[in-house]
């Protein structure tokens, strides 16, 4: 059991997660942002570690990664910053980023360090199922880390079943096949897709991500899944002056 498992055991719906890129807009505010989000009532967090070539991200998160790298963010530094994580933040934390920085850091070393500082889950969009299963699943398990997989409207039922079997916290449901920051268009097709997933009665809860920007889209997502993740919209807020103070209001606007 890690904090993610405990959270999902205790709370079944209306869960809210926020994504932000570590090192953006300033190098040293990673824990300040996390703390403010917890106080504002967010259920769990995704802290992004930046990468130079983020192919699954739209312009907003790309830009945040570029700035974070210019500011000097690295995995080494991030883990240093997270040394005090569990003194200041108690909600579940996931690290999210691309695979190459993890490969360079060393997958085992990365998992060990993540577990040490109190991280609960990892999201690496470009680590495929086959490689995870054959090479890395044992390492993740040893350090009690949940690996989170994504599912899109194009993912086959067979593959979703496989992902469900490999998961032990939640499944990241992409609201459409797109890069981050694309507006959620709740077409009939997407509703069908949500219904289809719901009807599969998966072991793991589903959390909807990509395209959640306001109360309306959050509530809609929660009709079909256990909760939703807000990324791009929040990263945009971080570009504003006095962003830390604006966090409570931002969260209230999404989940009244």
């Amino acid at each position, binding site marked *: 059991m890690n904090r993610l498992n405990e959270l999902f055991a205790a709370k079944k719906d209306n869960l809210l997660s926020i994504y932000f890129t570590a090192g953006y807009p300033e190098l040293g505010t990673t824990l300040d942002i996390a703390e403010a989000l917890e106080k504002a009532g967010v259920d769990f967090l995704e802290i992004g570690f930046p990468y130079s070539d983020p*192919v699954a991200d*739209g312009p907003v998160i790309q830009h945040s990664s570029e700035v974070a*790298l210019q500011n000097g963010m690295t995995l080494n530094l991030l883990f240093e910053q997270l040394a005090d994580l569990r003194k200041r933040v108690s909600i579940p934390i996931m690290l999210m980023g691309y695979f*190459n*920085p993890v490969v360079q850091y060393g997958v085992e070393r990365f998992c060990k360090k993540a577990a040490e500082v109190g991280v609960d889950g990892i999201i690496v969009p*470009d680590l495929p199922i086959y*490689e995870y299963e054959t090479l890395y699943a044992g390492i993740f398990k040893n350090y009690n880390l949940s690996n989170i997989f994504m599912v899109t409207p194009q993912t086959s039922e067979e593959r979703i079943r496989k992902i469900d079997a490999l998961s032990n916290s939640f499944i990241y449901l992409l609201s459409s096949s797109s890069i981050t920051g694309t507006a959620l268009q709740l077409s009939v097709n997407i509703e069908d897709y949500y219904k289809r997933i719901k009807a599969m009665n998966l072991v793991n809860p589903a959390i909807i991500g990509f395209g959640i920007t306001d109360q309306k889209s959050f509530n809609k997502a929660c009709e079909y899944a256990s909760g939703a993740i807000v990324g791009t919209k929040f990263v945009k807020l971080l570009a504003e002056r006095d962003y830390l103070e604006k966090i409570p209001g931002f969260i209230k606007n999404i989940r009244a």
Partner: protein
Amino acid sequence: MKIKVCGLKYADNIEAVSALGPDYMGFVCYGPSPRYAGELDAGTMNHVPRSIIKTAVFVNEDKETISALIEKYGFDAIQLHGNEDAEFCAYFKGQVKVIKAFGINEAFDFKVLDDFSDAVDLFLFDTKTNIHGGSGNSFDWNLLDKYQLDIPFFLSGGLSLENLEEVKKISHPQFYGVDLNSKFETAPGMKDIGKLGKAFEIIKQEPMNYGVNEQGYYGDFGGAYIPEMLYPNVEELRREYLSILDDEGFKTEFNELLKDYVGRPSPLYHAKRYSERYGANIFFKREDLNHTGSHKINNAIGQILLAKRLGKKRIIAETGAGQHGVATATVCALMGIECVVYMGEIDMARQAPNVSRMKMLGAKVMPAKSGSKTLKDATNEALRDWIANPVDTHYIIGSVVGPYPYPDMVARFQSIISLETKKQLKEHTGSELPDYVMACVGGGSNAMGMFYHFLDDENVKLVAVEAAGKGVDSGHSAATTFLGREGVLHGSRTILMQTDDGQVVEPYSISAGLDYPGIGPQHAYLYKIHRAEYASATDDEALQAGLLCCQLEGIIPAIETAHALAHLEKMKFKPTDNVVICISGRGDKDLDTYIKYFGF
């Protein structure tokens, strides 16, 4: 390759050879032979495992004796070394396997074999001698090219530990196995088990496999490291590409377009003044003469035909120098399909004529404004486009990079380069195998195409030349194998230039087509196992080499190509060496750069 051990006569020795597990064992039933096995006890033969085909060897024996011996010893095959005719052979066919032996020399008329085509199961080709049986000498195996029937044959005559590696290279489609005898003995009929053991090891050793495995890997390199959003697109390709490429209709259409539209085969030109200068026979494989001016069109034609068969309505591509962008725009115009090309903003400026060409061809050119604003960023943008348009769009990747199956698929489309080269070189030199094959490498598609059909010919040295930019250690370079480490880039595990933290480093080269921080995974593999040598040439060396090519051969090469030419200066050849260089593209697009550099 099957193994036959022949000339056994001692019971203990037979048992020891059986333990090695040959496919055939031969027992000489011809009195005058020093290996005559006629005294053998029938019981000894019963101990030979049933998996081994027991073969009796006769010279002009009569049918009754042969039948009696088959009965007595339980032979599974007979091998006939005398003047037995086809009718004689046919008498035994069906009852036992029939192997008819012939002695081969320059004068041998392979037509005499035609009569036997229905009468025997196998031929055995031995060295021609005046006595019946082995001489211990081998014959000129090139003569085997004259054998055209579809009956498999054993090779015999003077096979030893010294020449087995050579034997393994015989690529005749009917080459069935080897017949080992006198070179593996301590005395006539007494086999040297140690030597035979070594021979079995050499023969059974699989040739190195340089191709991709089912999971899309070359050793540790390759795979498909892609986000789930790209999975359905890539999976559809993976599922379909081999059967489409194998389809007769596809092959016909592909080959016709290569011939009539691209202008293939591209010539293999014997560059005489280059040969003089570098002291070897230097050949240019003229991909620069292709329609659109480079090898890129080969892959673009292949992929557009594939996209059509997959029912795609829209094409996207990335481009560095613009050559692949132009090739893609061209085939889209040809097929009437919408085309969007992503190109780094910096590349758009330095390859302006190609941007205009793409626009003339009806393509939309989208600038990649992120990161280094060059090829890698154009690739990122194309991938993002594909994520957003998963159903109707096909992404024509221009190099042997990206997630599996792209590296393999693009290599297959480009492999036409080496396929033609083999044939053309044979016409020039009498042998299809050169001593050296050279090409420049950015992502590595012209090099992969140039290497492809030579990979298994281990004597052919493969040389790839990367762009060193302002010098490998200058901080402005694209020499990936010198500066890179293993990691993941654009969906495959490969070697890439990166920081300690795993951030991709922005490469530099004067040539936009080589300005890429990674190399294709198959190249990473060939580099790691030392099957190919990876060298580099600087901007200055390349430009000088480009000018030299203009002035010695009257050919203006692309600056990419000029990197491969530049490396000739550092090579040491023997006068007899045959060297093929892939002239991957023509230099028209680079005139501005050449003119500025040399001040013409």
